[in-house]
Structure formats: C-alpha cells, structure tokens
C-alpha cells in the first residue's frame, strides 16, 4: 500500500480556494494530522499529491478525488476523521482507499446547477429545448487562445426543475477529453439564447463516472 485516494467535499467558503492553494491547504492538513506523506526526491521536495480533475474557483463539489502517497501503512478507515479534525471550514473528507482505476479513466461528471433569475425565470421547456439542440457550439477562451467547443454529445442526461431561486438543472458533462466546464452551459445561453440566460448560476459536482457510466472510485 503506498498509492492512496481520498474522496472529499469542497463546499461553502472552501469553494473559493483555488486549485493551487488547495494543494497547499491539504498538504498542511496532512502534516497537522501526522499522516506520513511521501515527498518527491530532489532539490525542492514537495508532497506527492494530485487532484484527479481540477475544480474551478467558486464551484462546490461533493465528490473531489485526490491521489497521494504515504511512506508506511496507515489506518484507512481512520484517516478521513483525523483529517477532518484539522481541516478548514468546507473541506470534509469522506473515504480513503487504494484506487483500482487510474484517474485518466474518469469520463463523466454529474453536476447540478442553480440558475438564479432576478426577474421571471423562463419556462423549463424552453431551456430543455435549448439544451436538446443538435448542435450547441460555444466559444471559449483557453490557454491556446479562443476556440469553439461543441456541447452537444458532451453533455447529457438533463433534468430540469423549478426551484426558489429559478431553475435547478442536473446534467452529466464530459469530465475529460474534452473537459467540459459546466459553466459553459451558461455561457452557451449567453451566446446563443441570451433571453434564457440567468442572472447568476452556481454549480456543484455530484459524482464522477467511467466511460461505461459506472461510478468511478
């Protein structure tokens, strides 16, 4: 046993911790808990921690996965509790196990968005029709400049319902290759059907799946 995986939540205030800062936050929590983390060799040793699919700032998650290594046998069942006792608000560890599959095998991500409308929310059917279009090309900025991503086929299983703030939307997005940030669903509205766009949307990740749609562990 040396490679391990932790599942944890990142909600509330912790949603605003950036990806890079999170690695630092988690590393310190490990140190406070006395976990025997394994460090890289070399000039500037750092803990070997990797977040399977990085999360954008401001988005919540109930299903974050993190791989790390330890130098000796530890009590897997006890670790989440030990870490939770020394973690900042909003970071909550759920389970620790030896992973069977590589993070690269993650394909789908179930998430939930809440679309807030300050005035009247559009009809559910209108939003539903939009997301069922055969082609939803959305322009986005990437590291390599501006590019167009086709959402159709990369987002599926929509569930829409009314809620107090406006509309609650469940959907499954492609998590890797291509990585579809659910925020693009709102961007698509702004670009292609601005009249349906919400005043604000918040997102939460619910779970990762493999290409066969089985829950990814």
């Amino acid at each position, binding site marked *: 046993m040396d490679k391990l995986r932790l599942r944890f939540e990142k909600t*509330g*205030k*912790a949603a*605003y*911790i*950036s990806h890079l*800062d999170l690695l*630092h*936050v988690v*590393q*310190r*929590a*490990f*140190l*406070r808990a006395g976990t025997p983390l394994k*460090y890289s060799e070399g*000039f*500037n*040793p750092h803990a070997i921690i990797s977040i399977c699919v990085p999360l954008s*700032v*401001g988005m919540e998650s109930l299903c974050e996965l993190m791989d790390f290594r330890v130098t000796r046998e530890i009590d897997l069942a006890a670790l989440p509790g030990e870490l939770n006792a*020394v*973690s*900042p*608000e*909003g970071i909550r560890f759920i389970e620790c196990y030896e992973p069977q599959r590589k993070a690269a095998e993650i394909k789908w991500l179930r998430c939930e968005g809440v679309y807030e409308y300050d005035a009247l929310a559009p009809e559910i059917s209108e939003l539903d029709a939009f997301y069922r279009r055969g082609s939803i090309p959305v322009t986005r900025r990437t590291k390599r400049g501006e590019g167009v991503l086709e959402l159709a086929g990369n987002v599926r299983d929509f569930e829409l319902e009314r809620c107090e703030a406006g509309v609650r939307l469940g959907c499954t997005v492609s998590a890797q290759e291509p990585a579809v940030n659910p925020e693009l669903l709102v961007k698509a509205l702004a670009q292609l059907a601005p009249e349906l766009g919400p*005043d*604000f949307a*918040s997102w939460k990740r619910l779970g990762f799946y493999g290409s066969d749609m089985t829950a990814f562990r």
Partner: protein
Amino acid sequence: MDKRLRRILPTVQKPARYTGGEYNEIVKDKASVKLRMAFCFPDVYEIGMSNLGMRILYGCINEVPEYACERVFAPWGDMAEAMRRENIPLYALESGDPVSEFDVIGFSLGYEMAYPTVLDMLDMAGIPLRSSERTGLTPLVFAGGTSMCNPEPMAPFMDLMAIGEGEELDIELLRLFEKARDAGWSKAEFLREAASIPGIYVPSLYEPVYKADGTLAELRPLPGAPETVTKRIVADLDKSYFPTKPIVPSTEIVHDRVNVELFRGCVRGCRFCQAGYAYRPIRARSPETVISQGIESIRNTGCQEATLLSLSSSDYRYLSEACDGLLEYCEPRSVSLSLPSLRADNFSMELMSRLQKVRRGGLTFAPEAGTQRLRDVINKNVTEEELLNTCRIAFEGGWNGIKLYFMLGLPTETDEDVLGIAGLADKVLHTWRKYSPNRQRGVRITVSTSCFIPKPHSPFQWEAQVSMDEYRRRVNLLRGAITARSIQYNWHDASTSFVEAVLSRGDRRVADAIECAHKMGARMEAWSDYFDFKRWLAAFDAAGIDPAFYASRERAEDEVLPWCRVSMGVKAGLLLRERHRAYEARLSPDCRAQCSACGALELLPEGVKCDG
C-alpha cells in the same frame, strides 16, 4: 453567505481572501459574547495576515471568553469597486457581519501611507469619518500601532489612540468600554475616563495652538488630559500571550510561515531608526519559550517554514541555543528555519549556513550608507572590513547573490558618500571574483536606495528631508558610478517618500489633506499600483497646507513637535545628545557595551533589568 457577495466573489481576483473560514479561525457565537471588536488592518489580506502584531492582538483579545475579535482587511481595488456597486458594506471575515454592527473598531497602523485606507474602510463601513461626527458611544473607533507614536495626523478621525504594545492595554480599554456602555455613559464621559488609562491618548482632549509662522505654540491639554501619555509595554515576554495556534490562511500571503518572536527592542541605536528607539526597553524571551512556542506553532499549523523574528536576530543572547532546539524538531520534519535581520558578522554567517542547508538564494545586508564617516553619523556600527569579510564567507560557502540596502539623503551626506555606495558594491564584486569557488555561475549584486525619511521619536526627528530633486540628483550620480554589469541598481521613488515624510511628522492640519486625498479617491497608497502623486499635491493644496513645511524643513530643537504629548519612554535629552553626536560623526556604544540610560528602563517594573 450573502447572496450579493456570492455573486461577486467569482468575478474578483483571489476570492479566498474575502471569505474567512481558515483553519484556526476563532468564531464565537455573537449572542453569547458581551463585546465584539472589529480588528481592522488597512491593507489587503495578504499583508495583514503576515503581520505578527495583528495576530498577537487577535488571539489575545479572543482569549477573553466574553469578547469576540474579528478580522477586517481592505479589499483590493476590483473587490472594493464590486462591493460599492452592489452596496455591500465592509464586513468582518469571521461572521460576515457589517463592521458598523461592532461595538469597537480598532485599526492597526504600522505605516503612514495606509492612512487614506483607514478612511476608505470607515467609508465602506458606512461610519462617519470624524470622531466629532460620531456622537454616540458606539461604535468606538481607535487606532494603535507604531505610526501612532505621532497620533496627530489621524487625530480628528480617531476617538482615541492606544500607544505602545497592546496586549494589556487593549484589554483594559475594552473593559472600561464595556463598563461605560452597560452604565450608559456618554461618549465624552467615557473618553475622559479612558484618558486616565496609562497609554491612552484622547486627541480631542488636546488643543493645538499655532504660532504665526505655522509651528505649534503648544498642544494644550484640556481638563482631564495627562500632560504626557507614555507608551505601554509588556514587561515579561515569557508570561505574555503569544499565538501558538495561529490562523492558517487558505490562500497565499506574503509571509506564509510560523513566526517566533525572539525579543523586543534593539540594542544598536541606529540614529535614523524609529523602531530602535520606539520599541525600547529590550526584553527577551527565554530560549525555552522560543523553542516550545515554535514547536507548538509548527504542530498546530502544519507550516513548513518558521522564522525567528526581531529587529536584529544576531543580538539575541540565546540564538544558538534557540536554533539548536528548534532544528532538532525541524530537521527530521523538513521544516526550514529562517533568520531575517542578521548582522554582517562571522557568527551570523556560520549560523546561516547551518540553517539553510539546501537553498542558497540571496543574502541581504543593510549598510545604509556608503562611507565609514556617514555610517558613524548614523551610528550604524558595521565596518567595510566586516561586511567584506562576511561576503567572502558567503561567496566561499556558495552564495551567489547579495542585496545591499542604502539610504540617500541622510543628514550630512555629501557626493563622496553617495559615490561610496558604488565603491562598496565594487568591492563586494571584487570579493566574489577572488573567493567564489564557482565563478561560471555568475553573481548578482543588487544595490537599492530609498530616500531617508526623518521619523518621530528618533534622534533625526528634527532633520529636513532632502528635496525630491536633490534625491533624484543623487540617484543619478550613483547610477553613473555603478558600471559593472553584475551590479544592479534599484531606487525607490522620490515622491512616495516625500508624502510619507509629510504624514510621519504631520500635525493635526495634515488630517485635512488625508481626508481630501481620500475624497479624491486615494486608498492603498503604499501600493505603486494605486499611489498617485498628483492627487496628493491636489489634496495638500485643497487642504491649504504646504507639504514642504512638513517634509523639507529642519525643526528648531526647541520647537513644539506634534508628538510632544506622547512619550516612548526615551528621554528627549538622549535623542538630542545622539543628534549632536551624529554631527560630530561620533559613535555611541550599543546597549550591550554600555547602557546610555535612555530612560526606557523606567517602563519596566522595579527590579527588572533591561536586556541591553
């Protein structure tokens, strides 16, 4: 979380600085506490959270079970704009509650350029800026911190100032405030009573009277006001509160590490240095306390870097002992230990080598002046030989970068002194050529100069600052004299130092200029991103004050100074003696060689010795 806030956070840079929720944050139930204080730091989170003083007082006040102390920082420009647009008032991180709902609002003022930010924060909180406009007892608005050793430029805005170290003073103040509030005292009644707490300066109880030439005739104490307010200190650092469970930021800050404080005060007596005089007498922590507080803090935070803090680490008597004890814990856990403000001597170098086993980055020294004559004038007791010897050891030990800090515009400085800086840098380069075992790697020598700013309560408090043009001329002179490619020269901007000089030694009339600057949009003026000299000139103009009167004028030795009602424990006679010796380029012994009977000993309880 507030809905409006939730909407703007994803749109601003580094939103984690605005949420709180970090590990070790102290959150209390507001229904079960008797008093809530908003501790405001007039700069961004990354700066404020790096400030040890703020961390000490935050923890110290929260040690009182019935008091809740929360943190407030100034938002960066994008966030400030968004908050104003969305009508979100300034709020405290722990509860998210508006600052205006707190009983007491305390500002930590460590540098003068933050003054406009204080007004901006009050404004963002929806609190009237001037004490006279806040007629009720709550919220009480006060300030502490080193800059308050001259409280007058902020006098109209503050209900009172806490002078000196706050660990005991702040609690006494809060106790009195609690009593006043519960008994329904008026603000005037409370302030009069507060003025009798040693260390509390109530500006409304002093009335400035000016002469025709604009200087002060007197700062008249009104009934109930003490003649002099003497700063408070903590006598025994081993018994005083120290935060060993500090907040661990969830986002990057400037100094993200565990701080261990070695001692307060400085034995050296550099004549330009306000801290060296204002923080006397010298009080040390025992090495046992240093070690145990260090280990405890590392354990409680998970930080992998610890720093031993003081004004001059090499002067801590038990430095080896403390380092050994800490290294024993740190080394096997890969926690690095760093020691800033070391002197340029052999002992320090050996220590540095032991601490920094892996990383050999840059070394920093502050000779402050380029010639021995001028170093004697300022009582900076370091010789060229010592400095070069240290450099030799460093270069031999594999260091390949050295930063040298100097001031231009020190009293009596001549062109020869300015050129001496270039000469010294050349000699450092020469030393590298001669002793570096690995010359292919090259060397980087950085020379930085700032413009000297005379500060209250230092022996140079009467001096004129050189004009901006003259500073620039000296910068150019030095630029021309630095020719080697491996010596890089950076100079600090003249206009910032000029404004800082006005604010540092200003009187109550300067407050109007600070308010004008604020009204014209000044905030975060310590940041070059925001500093706007033209706006300052317009503000001085609008307030009808001549900045040169404050920055560039030499004060007569018998002039009534705006900070005359505040005593830092050091006798004015000693400051004058030091000033006169400066003009004779005559050194004064450091406190270890011989006590100069500066007066600060009287701040300690009877029988306790100054660790000078």
